[in-house]
């Protein structure tokens, strides 16, 4: 059932995914959402996933990136940036 897994728990799981794939594959919002639904089945709704992503972004743990498609990333200095 929806609501069984807390948004905080989903956000933590998502954060681990993003951290693990950093530098290897840029993950999109849909990748994270689909992974959570695959993991928890109907205990997680798309809205829960959306809320978790919002929490990750608003807290500053993750940021959005855009390189020909939007991704969710760990904050870091980008290659193109002039310091």
């Amino acid at each position, binding site marked *: 059932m929806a609501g069984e897994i807390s948004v905080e728990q989903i956000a933590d799981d998502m954060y681990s995914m993003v951290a693990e794939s950093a530098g290897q594959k840029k993950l*999109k919002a*849909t990748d994270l*959402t689909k992974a959570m639904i695959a993991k928890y089945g109907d205990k997680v709704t798309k809205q829960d996933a959306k809320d978790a*992503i919002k929490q990750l972004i608003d807290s500053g743990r993750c940021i*959005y990136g*855009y390189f020909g498609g939007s991704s969710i990333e760990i904050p870091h200095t*980008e290659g*193109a940036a002039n310091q």
Partner: protein
Amino acid sequence: MSDELKTPLLDELEKGAWPSFVTDLKSMAGKSNMVKDLLRQLEKSYRDKRGYWKHGGLVGVMGYGGGVIGRYSALPDEFPGVSHFHTLRINQTSGWFYTSKALNELMDIWDEHGSGLLNMHGSTGDLVFLGTVSDELEPTFRAVTEKGWDLGGSGSDLRTPSCCVGPARCENACFDTMALTYNITHKYQDELHRPMFNYKYKIKMSGCPNDCTAAIARSDMGVIGIWKDDIRVNQAEFANYVDSGFNVQEFVVEKCPTKCISVEGKEIKIDNSNCVKCMHCINTMPKALAVGKDRGVAITLGAKAPIVEGALFGSVMVPFMKMEPPFEEFHDLLGRIWEFWDEYGKNRERIGEFIVRIGLATFIEGIGLDPIPQMVKQPRDNPYIFFEEYYKEEEEK
């Protein structure tokens, strides 16, 4: 480096009748080091025949994944003023209507926080603030929201919806383009600011098939005004066109794509059952002819520029839908489209490419529409039909 601005190549673009962006930018160079170094770098581009920009993908305002485009000079030591030169997309008003007061307020903000250069407007529709540094993004955002404005879209999100003047200043408007644009822009703020799609999704609203926003060529979803009943005719005004010497036969009757117009004396007759609403006769004789009264929209899906799978025009998904506030039928359709595309589309796959990949039949089934002949130019001309229903031997009785 000398402080003097020497741009002999760009100076050549100060000549001629068309308004010169170089003259304009030079007028800012005294005020803004960013503009001065922008001109210097551009002069170098003109000399070397290449651009000197790097793409930045991580800058933005807190909480949003859209609305800011990162840009860095590839030659920051030579042109420190444009070391950072990021863009903010400010969500324009419906129909691009402004007051000078509102624009002046936005310009005050931009002169304080950025280069003072703008695009009026970007290709999708936003009012574009062109060129600032990373540290000024958040203060600029704060200042524009204080004045009641917000950022538009960028990345894999709902891009800023835009529309023609519609009923504000056009007799051909078949629905309220301005109201629908305002409605969906506000309803879908989350989709606009937090990229959650496979790729970009542009929506454009045009009030009639003249399509002044190029919805059929430039938007993933085109909402284009249309009517179902008869063209309204003012015979007295039509007679005036004939009397004025306007060649109705050559310029109107013969140009009608379905040959549904005839003229007897000074009277025009239209076979409305055969009219395809191309707008030509109405465009040429606006005093005599007008769009009908039973109005709504046609909805097209899938237009895009060439990369990757080739350019596409939008194609008709819904030939007619009533479009009146609160627009619930439209929201519902849009929700089903996004849901299906989200589930089965690939990364970086525009909706038009998605439809072509999975096939129109699968797509419309997925979003709950029935196949109708209005969706195609013609039925298939190849025999490769994948039948889903057929008899099995034991059932054959």
